[in-house]
């Protein structure tokens, strides 16, 4: 049977080894390197599908477990497994990578083999992050992820790529080393590096607060939360299209995933104690960053700020759960918030990826990201305009698109916690529509702005496939989110029961 294979190892190592093969094929044969890269990406995606079909949605236990000793002196194991939180992230990763490979097909002329290989290796490392159940294994994947991304931005990025990529690397590196110290500390308390052992470890409040802060430094930079978000607009703007897509669609989710896997279950009391801080930062991200997005003149920067605001929803949904558990007797409200966050993570993966790809499509034609250089694109690229309209609507949270579902769930949950939270977070619905649609209007509608726009050709078949395959999940999960929510329900309920009990 397919499910008897070590599927998680395969979705990690097939793309990494495949990436090395692509490197070996080299740049002399760009066509060959691209084809191999696409085959590897497709194979990995195919390997991730049995993870979904074979997944038992009734249990909160880890599934597809693989366990082998790795570094015996420190009791570190090669321990993999997924639950309802990790599975959607892995599927999102394998799906997005296929699109990124296709999107970079003809566009990348400089060292295409290295480009494709970087993304494939990146894919394997990200799957590793989501599948790790051993804290050191997680950390190794987590940090190793920086290496390909550093090169992707630095080699294939825009004019200020060097500044952006070094800032990106140092920012995220700074955050994560504190997590390393916390993990080593936990190791001495639990005498194990297993994340599941950490979750069951009793810890005093003071210890929890320190550990929580160390985790916060790592995860808040990745999410990113206000005020440590400043690397993101730079990195997004300078990265090549594929880099922006992977950053927005997956790497930001890694931060939120960290909160779910580490901060909440390992330090529930500290999370509770500091939830006011997390809620405050999330609300600032949602409201303030939305205003910042409104004034952007660079399309990529606008979408980058919009990503920060959307991720504010995610962190809000996670950290209002303590309020909800306390104030309402049932877990229903809290579950709604956390599941809303997860749906938002997946949906934002599709939508932000699609937005960056749309900008990439236009950038490939006239090499500008400035809104003022465009206007009337609908006249020359009608099919493209239709796609972009859908994604712009989804980005503003229009009902019927996946963007609406997650945001609505989080708003509903926050209403139960505090009507003010709901009021503030709901302004996002308005501001999001304002900045996205205003940009859309200036770029797509109106008379043809200049000769360059007049010469733009509508999307090719390749671009149609990429945008079309993102449009499908945006609409499908918009009208029928049940498959997504079903997968995560058991895990989320279990997580909430776990964090409701004090650890000391």
């Amino acid at each position: 049977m397919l499910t008897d294979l070590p599927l998680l190892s395969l979705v990690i190592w097939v793309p990494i080894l495949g990436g090395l093969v692509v490197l070996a094929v080299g740049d002399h044969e760009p066509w060959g390197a691209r084809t191999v890269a696409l085959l590897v990406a497709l194979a990995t995606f195919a390997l991730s599908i049995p993870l979904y079909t074979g997944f038992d949605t009734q249990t909160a236990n880890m599934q597809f477990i693989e366990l082998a000793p790795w570094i015996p002196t420190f009791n570190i194991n090669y321990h993999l497994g997924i639950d309802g939180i990790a599975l959607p992230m892995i599927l999102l990763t394998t799906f997005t990578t296929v699109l990124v490979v296709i999107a970079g097909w003809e566009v990348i002329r400089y060292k295409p083999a290295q480009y494709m290989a970087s993304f494939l290796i990146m894919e394997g490392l990200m799957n590793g992050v989501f599948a790790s159940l051993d804290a050191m294994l997680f950390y190794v994947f987590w940090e190793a992820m920086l290496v390909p991304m550093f090169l992707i931005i630095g080699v294939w990025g825009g004019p200020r790529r060097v500044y952006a990529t070094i800032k990106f690397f140092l920012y995220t590196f700074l955050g994560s080393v504190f997590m390393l110290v916390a993990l080593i500390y936990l190791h001495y308390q639990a005498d194990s590096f297993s994340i599941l052992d950490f979750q069951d470890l009793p810890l005093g409040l003071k210890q929890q607060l320190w550990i929580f802060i160390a985790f916060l430094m790592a995860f808040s930079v990745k999410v990113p939360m206000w005020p440590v978000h400043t690397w993101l607009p730079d990195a997004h703007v300078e990265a090549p299209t594929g880099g922006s897509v992977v950053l927005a669609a997956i790497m930001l989710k890694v931060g939120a995933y960290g909160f779910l896997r580490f901060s909440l279950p390992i330090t529930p009391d500290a999370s509770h104690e500091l939830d006011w801080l997390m809620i405050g930062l999330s609300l600032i991200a949602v409201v303030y960053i939305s205003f910042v997005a409104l004034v952007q003149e660079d399309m990529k920067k606008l979408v980058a700020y919009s990503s920060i605001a959307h991720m504010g929803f995610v962190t809000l949904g996670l950290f209002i759960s303590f309020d909800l558990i306390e104030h309402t007797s049932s877990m229903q409200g809290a579950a709604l918030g956390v599941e809303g966050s997860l749906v938002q993570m997946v949906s934002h993966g599709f939508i932000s990826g699609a937005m960056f790809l749309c900008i990439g499509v236009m950038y490939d034609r006239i090499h500008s990201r400035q809104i003022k250089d465009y206007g009337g694109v609908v006249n020359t690229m009608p099919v493209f305009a239709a796609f972009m309209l859908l994604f712009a609507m989804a980005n503003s949270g229009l009902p019927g698109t996946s963007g609406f579902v997650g945001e609505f769930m989080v708003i509903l949950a926050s209403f139960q916690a505090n009507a003010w939270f709901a009021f503030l977070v709901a302004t996002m619905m308005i501001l999001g529509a304002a900045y996205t649609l205003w940009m859309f209007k200036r770029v797509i509608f109106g008379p043809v702005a200049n000769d360059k726009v007049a010469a733009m050709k509508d999307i090719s078949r390749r671009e149609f496939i990429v945008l079309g395959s993102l449009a499908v999940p945006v609409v499908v999960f918009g009208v029928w989110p049940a498959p997504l929510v079903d997968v995560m329900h058991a895990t989320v309920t279990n997580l909430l029961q776990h964090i409701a009990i004090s650890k000391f």
Partner: protein
Amino acid sequence: MHMSFVMPDFMLAAPEILVLGMACLILVVDVFLAERNRAVSYYLAQITLLGAALLTYAQLGGETRLSFSDSFISDPLSVLLKLFIYVMMLGVFLYSRDYLRDRKLFKGEYYVLGLFALLGMMVMVSAHGLLTVYLGLELLSLSLYALVAFDRDSARASEAAMKYFVLGALASGMLLYGMSMLYGASGSLDIATIGTYIRQHAGTDFVLVLGLVFVIVGLGFKLGAVPFHMWLPDVYSGAAAPVTLLISTAPKIAAFAMVMRLLTEALGNLHTEWRDMLIILVLLSLAVGNIVAIAQTNIKRMLAYSTISHVGFLLLGVLAGTADGYAAATFYVVTYTLMALGAFGMIILLSRAGFEAEMLDDFKGLNERSPWFAFMMLILMFSMAGVPPTVGFYAKFVVLSAVIDIDLTWLAVAAVVFSIIGAYYYLRVIKLMYFDKPVDETPLKAAFDMRVLLSVNGLAVLGLGLFPGALLTWCANSMG
């Protein structure tokens, strides 16, 4: 009292005896070699390394044994360190061969001095008495002074040798002075006897602490820990690349062995005292090494400051004072030297007759000139920065573990903060190689064996990062 002469167990020192004999042999043979046959000296030196490695390997897994009136020891730690010293020397000889030949420096003296330095290191590693430690140290140091001045027409090299000699002699004096106090207090030169004496008299004998201070100063000089680091950048940048390569690799292992013998075996019971002194050295080394390296434009100087910061990390493991900490420091020193070997090897690879790849800018656009070696340097730089999945990450991980284990978490936090500052200048090298266009388009030329060994060197850094388990276990077991 009955005294009798005990025949020492010469077999225990068989590797040392072989190296000594071969060094003398090469000295003689080289005189009779025609210029075109100079490679014979090179091959003899490599054969010596292999022979010594075989003899040392035979001692692997054996128990701790003493010889020469207890002044010489063979224990698991000495076997491990010696084997790594041979590996380093093998790399040094191979990497430097063509460089020396291109510059008309391909002389037998390089190998003779190299082997005498090796002998000094081996004696330091196996020393079990204060005099043996000093004997090995001086044999090593004198060989190195001469090697730095090896390119006698270079004013920079002569200046570096002079600095090295003056400061090195000062450091040896300090160390010797400290040793004399330990001898004065305990009445013995034997490390185990001193250890026992201190266990019985710790806290009562002030002269012991005074001796400890001088020993630490001497060790700090030899390792290059701040504030005793001034010689290091000048010597690294002044000496010819093959000599810098030698100084920056194997002698670090020997200096670490000296730290282990003196601080942990002889002065182990003064741990509380030397721990606090080492904390100061560590913090200063991490700060100065990492911050000053940022300002460098010469890659040899940059790597010199990087060495200083790595010495800080190394001492972090030692100061923990636990078996785990010592094992961590051992792991750190062998993996760090492996990285340094690769990094200086890359400098030699990029150099050619009439051109020294000394400036950071010489690495510009390496990815276009040679993607493979750019990738090797990428691995080495990320490893020095401590980014997984390279072995440099585990080196940092194990020493941080050791420090957190003794509840000095604040020190671990300080160390990681400095390592982030350090990451910047390693990233800059990668930036130059990958993001910039090449200035110099000359294709890389290197002998086949050098390419292979440099690739193995880089891949070992990656491979040990993916599977560090065996080496970690070996280091842990070598603590007895």
